[in-house]
């Protein structure tokens, strides 16, 4: 059975829009949550500005439990929670919820790793000038780690495009859904090709934006 391209193109445009929406929303919510968790993880480490063994250990364990779960399984596993929060398990917004949760923990690790590489002497200098822990977080930790942090977030964005395709296969909409229904179930090679090309272009654009931004910040 042949695809009717005149009705198919609008469908592609719409799906691409859904994928971009899923990725951007996840990136926004996931960054807010992930950066917060990453910062908490860093400042509560032993010897750091807000040392707290309990908070650190709890967060660390939570991340280590959630991160290794394959996304497609995680997606299904938390669907009751998704239904409770979003009201449904089908559609773009229903995909954004599990994607955000999964992305947060990945971003938290990226943030923590970048913060660890900040020279501790710089933090100490700020402390010696009388900066409070909160001040240090916003005026030292974040600005000092921003360049590599953006590279890290770019890396996460690329995997979010991957997540969004998976979410699409289980009713999340977007390009993944198109590829599934047209490409897999009806086995139309040309549809497959079009979606793959669009995904590659999206990844390239995300990578380019990330590289440009981080280069600007790191002045290299």
């Amino acid at each position, binding site marked *: 059975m042949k695809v009717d391209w005149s009705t198919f193109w609008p469908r592609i445009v719409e799906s691409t829009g859904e994928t971009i929406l899923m990725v951007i929303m996840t990136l926004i919510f996931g960054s807010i949550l992930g950066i917060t968790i990453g910062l908490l993880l860093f400042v509560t480490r032993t010897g750091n500005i807000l040392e707290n063994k309990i908070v650190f250990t709890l967060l660390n364990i939570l991340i280590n439990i959630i991160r290794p779960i394959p996304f497609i399984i995680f997606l299904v596993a938390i669907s009751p929670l998704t239904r409770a929060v979003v009201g449904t398990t089908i559609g773009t917004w229903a995909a954004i919820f599990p994607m955000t949760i999964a992305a947060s923990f990945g971003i938290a690790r990226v943030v923590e790793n970048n913060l660890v590489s900040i020279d501790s002497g*710089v933090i*100490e200098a700020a402390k010696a*000038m*009388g*900066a409070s822990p909160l001040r240090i977080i916003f005026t030292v930790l974040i*600005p000092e780690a921003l360049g590599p942090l953006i590279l890290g977030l770019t890396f996460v964005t690329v995997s979010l495009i991957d997540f969004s395709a998976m979410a699409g296969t289980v009713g999340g909409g977007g390009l993944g859904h198109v590829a599934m229904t047209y490409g897999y179930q009806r086995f139309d090679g040309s549809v497959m090709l079009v979606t793959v090309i669009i995904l590659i272009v999206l990844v390239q654009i995300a990578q380019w934006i990330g590289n440009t931004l981080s280069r600007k*910040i790191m002045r290299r």
Partner: protein
Amino acid sequence: MIEFRNISKTFKIGNREVNAVNNVSLSIEQGEIFGIIGFSGAGKSTLLRLVNLLENPTSGEIHVKGVNIGSLSQKEVRKLRSGIGMIFQNFNLFGSRTVAGNIAYPLKLAGVPKKEINERVNELLSFVGLTDKAKDFPEQLSGGQKQRVGIARALATSPDILICDEATSALDPDTTGEILRLLKKVNKELGITILLITHEMHVIQEICDRVAVMENGEVIESDSVFNVFTNPTHLTTQRFIQSVQQDRPSATLLEEWRKKGGKHLYRVIFKGEIASDPVLSRVTRKFDVDVNIVYGSVRELQEKLYGNLLVSFVGQEENISSVLSELKQDVTVEEVKVNEG
């Protein structure tokens, strides 16, 4: 200005304990440059970091400007810190901020209005001689320039104390001299009390008024730089002093001197006024003895002269004895064992 009273600091790593600072009592007076010298691991940095409570003492009291800092609330600790400038061996500048941004940082913390910040930053830039570097980032600067920014940043909030953790140890000798002159200027022109730590004796010699020598967490000697240089009591102190003044000729030179018939070698030490007085020639002439200066140096310490000469005498035995006893009334004379090196 800063008073350590029986201060100790113990670090616990697992079940191992390190006594980094051990029962130290020291008093740093207003307006002076006080140096603490010691080998690596002596506990200098730990002692310094206690002054602005980057570390808390395990026991003892520290008084800064008359206040026992052990009883301060967190907010008061931050206030204390903004009144104490600190500079570091590795500069610790913010890589994400320009030179001007680095200097402005403590002013922003203190809530100074933007216009005043700009004025103050310009003033500080010209004080440290970096007006043309305001918009540069730290990575574009040389080590000496970085430390100048560090100093400007530390002075931004007009503290009356500056503490320096090995401020010149990462710099080459020329740049070290520049930074030391700048610190002296900070002390003289702004009247800021400076407490510095170092492992280099020439830093102490060049700018300090008083010095304490630390070893294994303890202060083993503390006095004016002049007294410590001219009369060191501890072996460690003597080693530090020898590192800056070669007070002994090389073995080859001594061998040559002995071949020419030299027997007894004396060290004559002049201190202060006496160094500019021709005591040696006056006394030897009086007893008709010739003096032969084998080796020596005269240096200036805290604007006082300090001479250290190795001499031998040629003349009648008994005349030489008379010369020695008369010299001993004015200066320090001791016989040097030639074979000791």
